[in-house]
């Protein structure tokens, strides 16, 4: 099979949602599963990190981060001037695509493992790094064009951003807290401390990911309905943008001398769009943006696109353009 069977759980959820089945996964379970996934990924990354010299990551991190910020910078003008979306919507969607999706990353890792490709567990550090900066960039982009209250936009508007509150939301938001917290605990615990909690955080990971995908399918189904009215441009964007981002990822990986496995993961990170951290943060920081657009695009189109089409392509790109 060209994709990992767990993506079928997403299809099952999608089918249940679209067919208006009475299947409902309680919100409490959704919350619990997302907490679990973030922690488990952080922990695993931390354990891996404890085996490598940390310093080695610092240089490449800066480059990975800088290249990652290209994505919202590319996406914003396309959305604003080609798609003619309001500039709040353009900024919000750009932020979603600049940030990353934990579940997409996890499916890519599962795909690599099924194909028995090597990759390094510390790639999750990039996941944690890439989650937030794009959100801040999105807020800045939104405010630059903000004419609200007749106070003028442009750089002057930046002064009106509640930087403190934004920083708080970024660093103490659930996803960063759990990812970084997991990384640190995993790093402190090391392989030996990890072992007794591994039945929950490692062995159960893929099964619980499957359940989360089922739930994602249900949520995506409700989003697709709301999204249908927004026309072809955004659907097209949601399928082309990941491919562009993945190319940025492969180029960056090549520049940094990444292995094919690590490169496929970096491409996936760039190509993925956030739907855990970004929607909540954007709803508060850029209330004028319509969440139906950004969530519809990222969760309703890009997420399944990556699962079924994107990841196999990124893996192929990595094999073709990067060393074994």
């Amino acid at each position, binding site marked *: 099979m060209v994709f990992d069977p767990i993506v079928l759980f997403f299809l099952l959820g999608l089918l249940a949602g679209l067919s208006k089945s009475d299947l409902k996964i309680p919100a409490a379970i959704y919350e619990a599963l997302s907490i679990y996934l973030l922690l488990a990924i952080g922990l695993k990354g931390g354990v891996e990190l404890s085996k490598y010299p940390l310093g080695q990551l610092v240089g490449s991190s800066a480059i990975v981060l800088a290249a990652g910020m290209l994505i919202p910078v590319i996406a914003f003008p396309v959305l604003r001037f080609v798609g003619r979306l309001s500039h709040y919507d353009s900024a919000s969607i750009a932020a979603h695509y600049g940030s990353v999706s934990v579940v997409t990353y996890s499916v890519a890792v599962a795909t690599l493992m099924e194909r028995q490709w090597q990759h390094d567990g510390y790639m999750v550090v990039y996941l944690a790094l890439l989650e937030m900066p794009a959100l801040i960039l999105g807020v800045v982009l939104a405010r630059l064009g903000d004419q609200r209250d007749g106070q003028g936009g442009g750089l002057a508007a930046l002064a009106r951003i509640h930087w403190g509150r934004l920083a708080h939301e970024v660093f103490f938001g659930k996803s960063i807290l759990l990812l970084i917290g997991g990384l640190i605990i995993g790093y402190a615990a090391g392989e030996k401390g990890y072992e007794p909690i591994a039945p929950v955080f490692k062995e159960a990971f893929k099964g619980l990911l499957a359940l989360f995908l089922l739930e994602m399918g249900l*949520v995506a189904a409700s989003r697709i309905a*709301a999204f249908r009215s927004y026309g072809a441009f955004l659907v097209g964007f949601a399928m082309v943008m990941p491919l562009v981002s993945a190319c940025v990822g492969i180029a960056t990986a090549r520049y940094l001398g990444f292995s094919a496995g690590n490169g496929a993961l970096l491409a996936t990170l760039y190509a993925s769009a956030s739907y855990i951290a970004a*929607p*909540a943060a954007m*709803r*508060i920081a850029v209330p004028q943006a319509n969440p139906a657009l950004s969530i519809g695009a990222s969760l309703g189109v890009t997420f399944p696109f990556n699962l079924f089409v994107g990841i196999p392509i990124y893996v192929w790109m990595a094999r073709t353009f990067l060393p074994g």
Partner: protein
Amino acid sequence: MAKAYKLVTIFCEAVLEPLVIREFDKLGIVGYTVSDCRGRGTHGVRSGNWRMSANVRIEVMCDLALSDRLMDALQPFDRDYGLLVVRSDVEVLN
């Protein structure tokens, strides 16, 4: 013994809860009650199956004057968020 009060009930997106409570703090409102709900309105179906589509009901018992000021304070949220604010008469018994 029972005092005449107003009950202000705010139906809104769950993400708005902390912002609404910040307004309470500004207005000096101490008491409030929050419960989770779902629903439908001009912003479409909000099914409550994840946080981004969940609603909350926030209830505040207060006097008429304060309820007026609360309404005004919530007005700005109405433009960008799913929000419904209603007011009714209640007797408070303690």
